[in-house]
């Protein structure tokens, strides 16, 4: 194998693939990136056995071939090369990859490609495309609610599925940690009808999110019962799905809450942030006392003292006091892009529904605290 490639192109691709490679792995080959040179392009491939990424980028291929080399080391080297440099990669079969650039020369220990695991590709039953912007919005507004508790593995991801929402076919993402829930939907793209419900693991979510950060245009999504694949330009990310049943989330989203409160989202966020400075480290509880036209936020803790702040709001449903985890509340406020947030509540012990007044595509449910 022999090829020459522009440093910036190589860096970009390596940056994408190395982030899939686990730093701590007991299987040596999994620390490596598979390099495949042929027909004017270099393909880079990395996996942690659950998640696989393949990216190709243009290169001047002198002699085709394939090899695997340590991903993090390679990335580190390329990162430190000067901007605009040309990089030559050569492997002659002696167990070492030679990287040459300018007057620098590196020899990297390699492992043969035969040992490199491939996620058996299998068939995908449904394929549809989605704009990168839409995918970002599906992910961004739900991922904060993903559970990190490993014993409830089926909550350790985003539930992506097609469903019917008041007579409209939609593509939905849902995440919950059992304390709060986020649900976002978009019109169902062509080809997604009848797709299986998929729980996309947290790591895959975060990798795909990185990849679409700068991306414009469309992302192709393919799903099967066991896998999901995102094709973004020259990059293909394939992940195993979480093998579990996502809870029947519809049941916990109340529909009959009749106490409605609307207020300016930024104002509320800032007030919550200030008041919760006083609440105790871990529980971070904050109380919202609602009266006609006014919400009083308060917090107290034995160590720190107490805090009170009044915020104007449109509310006229009788006095009500609810406690929340201030961090959960802030997380949700951050998702709301419009000016105002609408809270619909039943009482201080039932789920509160929060929406962006100007955007019906997302619903957040927050379970109160007793303080």
């Amino acid at each position: 194998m022999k090829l020459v490639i522009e440093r910036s192109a190589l860096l970009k691709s390596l940056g994408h693939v190395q982030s899939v490679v686990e730093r701590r792995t007991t299987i040596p080959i999994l620390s490596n990136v598979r390099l495949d040179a042929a027909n004017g392009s270099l393909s880079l491939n990395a996996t942690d056995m659950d998640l696989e990424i393949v990216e190709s980028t243009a290169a001047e291929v002198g002699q085709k071939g394939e090899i695997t080399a340590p991903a993090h080391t390679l990335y580190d080297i390329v990162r430190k090369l000067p901007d605009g440099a040309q990089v030559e990669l050569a492997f002659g079969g002696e167990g070492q990859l030679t990287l040459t650039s300018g007057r620098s020369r590196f020899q990297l220990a390699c492992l043969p490609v035969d040992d490199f695991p491939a996620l058996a590709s299998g068939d995908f039953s449904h394929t549809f495309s989605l704009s990168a912007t839409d995918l970002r919005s599906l992910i961004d507004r739900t991922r904060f609610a993903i559970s990190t508790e490993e014993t409830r593995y089926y909550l350790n991801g985003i539930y992506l599925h097609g469903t019917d929402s008041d007579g409209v076919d939609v593509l939905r993402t849902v995440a919950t940690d059992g304390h709060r829930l986020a649900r976002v939907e978009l019109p169902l793209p062509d080809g997604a009808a009848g797709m299986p419900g998929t729980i996309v693991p947290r790591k895959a979510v975060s990798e795909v999110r990185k990849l679409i950060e700068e991306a414009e245009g469309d992302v192709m999504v393919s799903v099967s019962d066991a896998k999901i694949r995102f094709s973004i330009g020259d990059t293909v990310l394939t992940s195993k799905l979480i093998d579990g049943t996502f809870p029947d989330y519809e049941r916990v989203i109340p529909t009959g809450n009749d106490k409605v409160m609307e207020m300016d989202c930024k104002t509320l966020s800032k007030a919550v942030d200030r008041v919760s400075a006083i609440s105790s480290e871990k529980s971070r509880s904050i109380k919202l006392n609602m009266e006609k036209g006014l919400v009083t936020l308060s917090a107290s803790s034995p160590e720190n003292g107490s805090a009170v702040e009044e915020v104007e709001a449109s509310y006229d449903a009788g006095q009500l006091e609810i406690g929340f985890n201030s961090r959960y509340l802030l997380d949700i406020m951050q998702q709301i892009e419009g000016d105002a947030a609408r809270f619909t509540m039943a009482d201080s012990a039932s789920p509160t529904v929060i929406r962006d007044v100007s955007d019906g595509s997302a619903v957040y449910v927050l379970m109160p605290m007793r303080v």
Partner: protein
Amino acid sequence: MTVRFLPPNLVNQIAAGEVVERPASVVKELVENALDAGASHVDVTMNDGGRSRIVVADDGCGMDDRELALAVERHATSKLPDDDLTKIGFFGFRGEALPSIGAVARLTITSRTQDAPSAWYIRIEGGRREGPVPTPHPAGTRVEVRDLFYATPARLKFLKTARTELNHAVDTIERLAMANPTVAFTLMADGRTRLSLEVEDGDLFDARLARLGAIMGKDFVPNAVKVEADRGGMRLTGYAGVPTYNRGNALAQHMFVNGRPVRDRLLQGVVRRAYQDFLASNRYPYLALFLDVLPREVDVNVHPAKAEVRFRDAGQVRGLIIGALKHALAEAGHQASTTASDAALGAMTPGTLPPRPSQSLFDVARAGQAPLQETGLAEDQTTYDDAPTAVVFDPKTDNGADGDYPLGVARAQVHETYIVAQTEDGLVIVDQHAAHERLVYERMKAMLADTGVARQLLLLPEVVDLDEAAAQCLAARADELAELGLVLEAFGDGAVMIREVPALLGDTDVQGLVKDLADELADFGEALTLQDKMADVCGTMACHGSIRAGRRLGGPEMNALLREMEHTPHAGQCNHGRPTYVTLKLTDIEKLFGRR
């Protein structure tokens, strides 16, 4: 005073005092008789905790009229054919159970041998016998005991609630069922099926494992390793749970000697020894061990009702069990590995606050050392493949000079479990889980004292499956638990539904927490209030709200933990009394390298 022989019924009542303590002892005697009779199905029915009615029906060999009449006589038994007490091959041998039961309750027995044309029926009440008379009944024996202790009201007073008595009986049947996987058992209590264990087949190991799973919970099966060892005419078989599958009390440790369930202090000590390198001192493994020894090596004649045994050579038994368990655990690949030398560990001192004598330096050292199996050196090699890793972070981002902080500044996290910090004159190694657990615990205590524990309501209430007794026990203490932040309610039989959790635990493993609490409550018994045991309960909750070993921590996170430890009382010990950190002075390090 006149010396005289007591009338037979009084003798039997006195004997009953020994043999029949409570409904569960009746169940034990009758089920053992059924097993001795070679039954393959044993069906037990109980009403009112066994107080008003106990029925045990089997499909064993049965009795003819002559045997039936004899069976209810004192010291009549079919089980010591050679009059040799050193050859006990059955559960029974005293010939005491039936007459004793007949003296304190209304007893009827219906029995038919396999090929007899008819069954026989006999009735004993107040020591008086009626029958045998012929009656229709399938082959096998059905013993019915009504109104237990009606004849000895003093005994009646000592009975606990029906539920407690029933739980004792369930325990008894489960233990007998573990040793007899090829026999089916059922227990109906007040019209409800409480136990239903099918015949397990396959070889003895498979059948046993399946039966153990049916009783101890199906999770036991994938978490169990086979135990098998022979020594000097003794044979030990069974299954031991891997160390990571553990619980908060010793109730799931079962031992059987020649098929007879025994409760022996010996077992607990021995198990502790075998697991000591893998388990914290307040955690207990699940296991069921079956020891077969020549009858003459063991005395089961210690006490008729107590499950005690006496070994001729207890030392040898102990050695056999420890060896077999350690071997099984090593095979399972759960050996701890270490590269640190004894010398290095010997120089380390456990965290400042009262290093209790029980956690000597040796414990610290031992905890980190692999038990060396004489024969296991070859297998040990594998542990080196798992390359140790350290996440080191840039000291430039550190805050403050090292000297400002007693616990120093974090330099690295090793094995995603320990934080290594540099102090002015040495280094500190912190067990991140133990340390964090302590902090959560102290916080919880402070909150409890001040404002009560804030509770997070669950959007998705969690149902936790437990055994019925544990679920009842938790539900009975729901009010007390609510004060500590855990709100639950009974959910059918054998499960509880969790609706609120202590907020400071965050997104936590509710299932694990509740199971541990249930274990703990089982240990406390009925008398104690949770307030008395608050430290333990908070400790258990804290443990679940803490950073696990195995979680990667960033520099700021590590330093925050160190700073908080400095400000928390008793931060030097975790709730289990182990040190949360050890320090190594520069002078000690120098000694290690022969510089001093």
